[in-house]
């Protein structure tokens, strides 16, 4: 029953999102102004609107969209003149791979350094790691991206400037993308671990003679993970919506860049398809997060 209720809510929020995206995207203006030449006459614009059905009342357009959606027809891109869903599905794996790797690195780094920082709050290591993570969380990624390209690609010639290719192509984009999640997660792990390490069960573990390594990384860490996973989930959702800066600067053919381009071009079908794909991904992510909660916290399991 609970599962059924949750699924229903999810479907309702997806429907609400699609409704919102449909109407909001159309409020950005008439696509004929962007797809026809500057000198196009009113008659040319009217013909364009008729060809693409934009001259129908908005509720008729919406009805058509819903019917097409139910028939798994996600529309045709105005600019590319091919299936909008094909375009979104071509772009999404690039973003997914980049974001997954970035989050995995940020997560692992944050756990390691956050735990080390929490071991002696206010100590030298804690201060150093705090400075690092706060710097990471607050540095503008666009600036970091360009600076890293100038240093490592242009001046030193060690890495390629941009593009998609072998392992070296991943280094700068990943570094830029990891910086902020690492900073934020590092702070969350630190805070959560400080609380856990002052808990009675940790003192008991010390009293029983357990090693410090085991206490930190087995007992305390597991209990500190719930807030970390919550924040990591939010970060992952944000990144899945588009690591736009990284994708734009490094010419990464991901869904964030696709969405921004589609919005700028008023390519409604691509906007809708991209958001649908991303929403589905976030839905799956939320299911995975729920499973992670269940695994980590017996209280959730039993409830």
């Amino acid at each position, binding site marked *: 029953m609970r599962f059924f209720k949750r699924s229903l809510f999810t479907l309702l929020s997806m429907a609400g999102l699609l409704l919102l995206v449909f109407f909001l995207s159309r409020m950005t203006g008439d696509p004929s102004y962007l797809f026809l030449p500057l000198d*196009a006459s009113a008659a040319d614009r009217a013909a364009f609107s008729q*060809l693409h059905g934009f001259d129908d009342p908005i509720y008729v357009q919406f009805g058509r969209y819903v019917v097409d959606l139910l028939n798994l027809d996600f529309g045709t891109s105005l600019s590319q003149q091919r299936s909008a869903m094909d*375009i979104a599905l071509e772009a999404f794996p690039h973003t997914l791979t980049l974001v997954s790797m970035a989050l995995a690195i940020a997560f692992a780094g944050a756990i390691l350094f956050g735990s080390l920082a929490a071991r002696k709050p206010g100590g030298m290591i804690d201060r150093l790691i705090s400075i690092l993570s706060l710097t990471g969380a607050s540095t503008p990624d666009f600036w970091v991206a360009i600076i890293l390209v100038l240093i490592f690609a242009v001046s030193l010639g060690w890495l390629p400037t941009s593009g998609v290719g072998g392992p070296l192509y991943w280094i700068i984009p990943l570094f830029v993308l990891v910086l902020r999640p690492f900073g934020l997660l590092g702070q969350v792990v630190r805070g959560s671990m400080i609380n856990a390490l002052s808990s009675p069960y940790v003192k008991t573990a010390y009293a029983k003679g357990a090693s410090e390594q085991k206490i930190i990384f087995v007992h305390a860490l597991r209990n500190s993970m719930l807030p970390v996973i919550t924040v990591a989930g939010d970060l992952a959702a944000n990144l899945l919506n588009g690591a736009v800066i990284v994708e734009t*600067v490094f010419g990464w053919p991901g869904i964030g860049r696709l969405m921004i381009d589609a919005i700028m071009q008023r390519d409604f079908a691509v906007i809708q398809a991209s958001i649908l794909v991303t929403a589905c991904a976030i839905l799956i992510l939320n299911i995975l997060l729920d499973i992670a909660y269940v695994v980590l916290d017996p209280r959730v399991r039993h409830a």
Partner: protein
Amino acid sequence: MKKGKTYLAAGISGLLAVAGLVPHAHAANETVTVVLPEEPPSLEPCESKHSSVGRVLIQNITEPLTVIDPQTGEVKPELATRWEQTAPDAWRFYLREGVKFSDGAPFDAKAVAASIERLQRTDMTCNTKQQTLGGVDIKTNVVNDYVVEFKTSKPIPIFPTMMTVVQMSSPNMTLSGASRNPIGTGPYVITAWNAGTDITVERRDDYWGEKPVVSGARYVWRSESALRAAMVATGEADLTPIISVADADNPETDLSYPNGETTRLRISTMVPPLDDKRVRLALNLAIDREGLKVLFGEGAQLSEQLVGPNVNGFNPDIKPFAYDPEKAKQLVAEAKADGVPVDKAITIIGRNEIYVNAGEALEAMQAMWSEIGLNTQIRMFDTGNWLRYQNKPFPEPDMANLHQDQHDNLLGDATFTTFNKYDTEGVNSAVSDKRVDDLIAKAEPATGETRTKAFQEAFALLHDDIVADVYMYHMVGYTRVNPRLDWRPTLATNSEIDLSSIRFRASE
């Protein structure tokens, strides 16, 4: 210590190079990598007026019947060897024999008819037709295999010029959506398009013309000018057609060229206080355009009409307005004394990134106009909303405004400028003057000297007598080219990059 770091850097670079991990775009071959500002939305021949499409397609994959010589502006034969006008609304073209499309289909009169049909299709809006042949329908009559006759819905004396934009494509290409795999008669064929990543082309062995030196090309795209420049600097790419003036900091690799664009602020000449000629003249005299060149590059030329010297109808006798703020102040004072509401706010309609430093230029001009006592306010828009103010019906017809505009006329005839921009009925026009309308009407059906003179008179009238615009610059563009290439940009570089024109320097 410094030496140690240098050794370390050199060591790591060496290791990476040995491992083959750092990309070297031009490792001992005759291929080139071109980095464009954006990925083409398609490679549809009838969309070739879209610059991102044209730069890959034109002269490389597809070719037109006629071409414009970028140096002289003359129309020259390409797939047609000659042509003649048989009636005011009819033209006969004689086709080059022995030409084949890359799919093996013969290039003949039937193929020309199919290409015209493709252009006039109704399942999508072809920008080539919209931009250059708008309102004209073309009927094709196949006379024999190598002779084709065109009948146009109205007389077009410059029909051979218009045919320079119509790309010939194989009759075997389907008419479903915008093509991503065009088939033409050009010296190259598309070999791969990895969506979002790159497009590669390869030289054809059976090309009808001279075999190009470049054996193939890879097109990639980056939206950031600094990154495009960096890619050429590091050797990852060989050329990029557009970089900003700020990134063009290496005289050895960065070439400036007149890009055919002319900038202006269109004056709403019928709305007070801009309906007073003295105010319009003051707007022009108050601008220190020599000083503002720093924003656009020293190669930019002060403009005095909306077309450049490459265009038939350009008037070389018009002199640009000189910077004279004192005279401008005096004109404003005179207008004020005569009751012209010079204190009324004038709105500047700007467009983000219409050209490099577009916003900065407007801010500087606003300060200069403030010095002479005019009250201006800037409203910046994205392209879509800016376009609402570009075209009639204007959304706020009573608003005194200066509309930031940039116009190119690469087809080489003033007809592609004058009617829309200055005729009373023109879709972009903020001018209504019978003398201008009459001159345009006189020029359009005419040929030769009559045509040229009528356009020249119209431009002189608009500048000297009407003061229709705040005139700015004939602009320049900047390209970055790897020193291993022997290639220079031309007026056409904005819309096409002819790979056949690229040579390699001897040292490579």
